[in-house]
C-alpha cells in the first residue's frame, strides 16, 4: 500500500480546490490535491459556455479554460494534483494529524498523512425525487447537469424535445445548449414567481430563442410508458393544467452541498447552508479541517468560490505550519431577510469578508453590520434577489459581544 505525507490535503480539484491548493502551496505548504474524476476542474469541464473568470482572472472564459488556468497556477505554485483518486475516509488522529484513505484504479489503496485538510467537494444536484414529482418512472428524465455532461463530455443528445423544470442557471444554460444542438425546448417552468437564474441568462438563453418561461408553474405529473411522452404542468395561481408533449425532462431544481466525509468526521453542519459551520479562517468545528466552495455554501459564480477557497488554503497552510490562527470566538448572526451568513464566527479586531444569501427581493437594500445592536458599517445593495449572493468586507471591532447583519429594503 502506497503512503504519502503532506502538510495540506485538498479533497476535490474543482474551481475551489485548485485555488485552495495554489494558495496553500504559495504559502509554503507541501500540498496534495486529489479528485475522483480522471481530469481536474470539477463541473467546470462540462460548463463549455463562457461567462467565468471576470472577477478572478479579469477575463471572460469558458469552464474548461478557467479550469486549465487554475490547474496551471496550482501546479506552478508547487501543489501536487492526483486525479482518479476517491477518498473513502478521513480520520483525525489523537495527535491532531489526519489520515485519509484513497483508492484508485491505478494504485489501489493509498494512505495520506497530513497536518491539515481542506474540503472542496462541491455539491450534488437535487433530482425529481427531491421535489417529489409524481408520475411514470420512464427513460428521458435527467438532472440538467447530467444532461450537460452527456452532451458536452460524451457527445450524446439526451432527446429531441425537452421540458426544463426549474429556472436555475444550469437549466437556462441547458435550454440554449439544447437549441444549439437541434433539440426543441417546449418551455422552462419555475414554481416561484420569479426566475432563479441570472438575468443575463434569461436574456441570452431564453429570449434569444423565444423559449417560454412560465413562472409560478409546477410539473404535476410525468407521463410515459418506456420513454417520457408528456408532462402535466399546473399554473399555481389559476390551477389550470396544460400538457406538454416532450420526450425529455431536465430538472434544474437546486444544489445540495456534498459533505459526507465531513459528517463522518463529526463536523457540525449549518442547516441554513447545508455546509459545515466555519469561522473566519474557514475552519470547521473539527480543528485543522477547512472548507470552501460549493460544499461550504452554494455559490452563483465560480469566481467567488475560488476567492473564498484562497482563504481556506492560506489558513490550512498556516495551521499546518503550527503558526496558529486567530481565535474566532465571536458568533455572527443575521436577520430574517438573510438566509445565512458565512463565516458564522470571527475574531475580534480582524478584517473579514462575509457571504450572504438574501431571502427577499427588492431594488435597493441596506446591508448593515451591527456590533451589540449599533450599526458600525453598511453597504448599499441594488437588485437584491435570493438568486444572487451578497458579500461585504468589514472590520470586526476589538471589543464586542454580539455581531449581526441586517438587510433592510430602501423605499
Amino acid at each position: 500500500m502506497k503512503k504519502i505525507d503532506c502538510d495540506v490535503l485538498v479533497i476535490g480539484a474543482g474551481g475551489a480546490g485548485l485555488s485552495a491548493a495554489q494558495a496553500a502551496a504559495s504559502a509554503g505548504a507541501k500540498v496534495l490535491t486529489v479528485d475522483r474524476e480522471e481530469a481536474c476542474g470539477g463541473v467546470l469541464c462540462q460548463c463549455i459556455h463562457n461567462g467565468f473568470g471576470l472577477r478572478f482572472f479579469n477575463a471572460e472564459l469558458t469552464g474548461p479554460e478557467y479550469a486549465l488556468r487554475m490547474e496551471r497556477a496550482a501546479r506552478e505554485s508547487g501543489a501536487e494534483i492526483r486525479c482518479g483518486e476517491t477518498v473513502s475516509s478521513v480520520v483525525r488522529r489523537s495527535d491532531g494529524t489526519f489520515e485519509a484513505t484513497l483508492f484508485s484504479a491505478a494504485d489501489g489503496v493509498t494512505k495520506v498523512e497530513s497536518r491539515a485538510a481542506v474540503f472542496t467537494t462541491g455539491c450534488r444536484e437535487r433530482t425529481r425525487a427531491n421535489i417529489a414529482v409524481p408520475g411514470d418512472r420512464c427513460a428521458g428524465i435527467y438532472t440538467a447537469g447530467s444532461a450537460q455532461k452527456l452532451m458536452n463530455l460524451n457527445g450524446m443528445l439526451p432527446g429531441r424535445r425537452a421540458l426544463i423544470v426549474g429556472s436555475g442557471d444550469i437549466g437556462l444554460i441547458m435550454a440554449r445548449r439544447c437549441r444549439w444542438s437541434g433539440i426543441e425546448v417546449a418551455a422552462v417552468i419555475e414554481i416561484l414567481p420569479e426566475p432563479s437564474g441570472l438575468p443575463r441568462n434569461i436574456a441570452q438563453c431564453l429570449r434569444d430563442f423565444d423559449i417560454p418561461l412560465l413562472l409560478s408553474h409546477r410539473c404535476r405529473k410525468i407521463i410515459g410508458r418506456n420513454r417520457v411522452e408528456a408532462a402535466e404542468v399546473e399554473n399555481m395561481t389559476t390551477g389550470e393544467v396544460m400538457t406538454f408533449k416532450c420526450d425529455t425532462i431536465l430538472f434544474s431544481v437546486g444544489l445540495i452541498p456534498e459533505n459526507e466525509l465531513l459528517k463522518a468526521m463529526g463536523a457540525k453542519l449549518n442547516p441554513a447552508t447545508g455546509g459545515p459551520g466555519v469561522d473566519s479562517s474557514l475552519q470547521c468545528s473539527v480543528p485543522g479541517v477547512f472548507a470552501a466552495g460549493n460544499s461550504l455554501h452554494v455559490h452563483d459564480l465560480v469566481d467567488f468560490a475560488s476567492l473564498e477557497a484562497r482563504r481556506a488554503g492560506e489558513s490550512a497552510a498556516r495551521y499546518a505550519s503550527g503558526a496558529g490562527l486567530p481565535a474566532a470566538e465571536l458568533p455572527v448572526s443575521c436577520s430574517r431577510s438573510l438566509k445565512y451568513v458565512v463565516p458564522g464566527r470571527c475574531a475580534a479586531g480582524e478584517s473579514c469578508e462575509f457571504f450572504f444569501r438574501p431571502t427577499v427581493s427588492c431594488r435597493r437594500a441596506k446591508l448593515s453590520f451591527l456590533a451589540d445592536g449599533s450599526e458600525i458599517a453598511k453597504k448599499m445593495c441594488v437588485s437584491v434577489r435570493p438568486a444572487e449572493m451578497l458579500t461585504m468586507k468589514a472590520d470586526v471591532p476589538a471589543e464586542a459581544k454580539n455581531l449581526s447583519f441586517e438587510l433592510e429594503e430602501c423605499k
Partner: protein
Amino acid sequence: MKRIICITCPTGCEMEVDEKEGKILCTGNRCPRGAAYAETELRDPRRVVTAVLRCTDGRFQPVRTDKPLPRKLIAGLLNTILKKSFPEAEPGAVIVSDIGNTGVNLIASGPAR
C-alpha cells in the same frame, strides 16, 4: 424604446435603449460596457458561440468563438461543426478562421475528452 438586459457580466443591468437621430441612447447601465453592448445589440446583435466538436479519434473537444459572432451566422457555424470531424487542437488554437469574413475565429477552449 426597447428594454434589454446587458449580458456582458453577471450583474445583468436592465437597460432602456432608444435610437434618436441615428444615435443610440441607453439608461440603466452601471458601466460603459453596457452602452457598448446596447449599441451592437440594436445594430448588429452578436453572441459568443460555444459547442463541442467531434475529433477524428471519436473524442469530443470544447470550442468557442474568440469574439461575439453576428447572430445570423450562428446557425451556419453550428451546422458546419456538427457535420464534420476535426483533428484535436491545442487549447487556444484556431479551428475555423474568419467566419463569414467577420474576423471572428472558432478556437479550441480545452483539451479533448
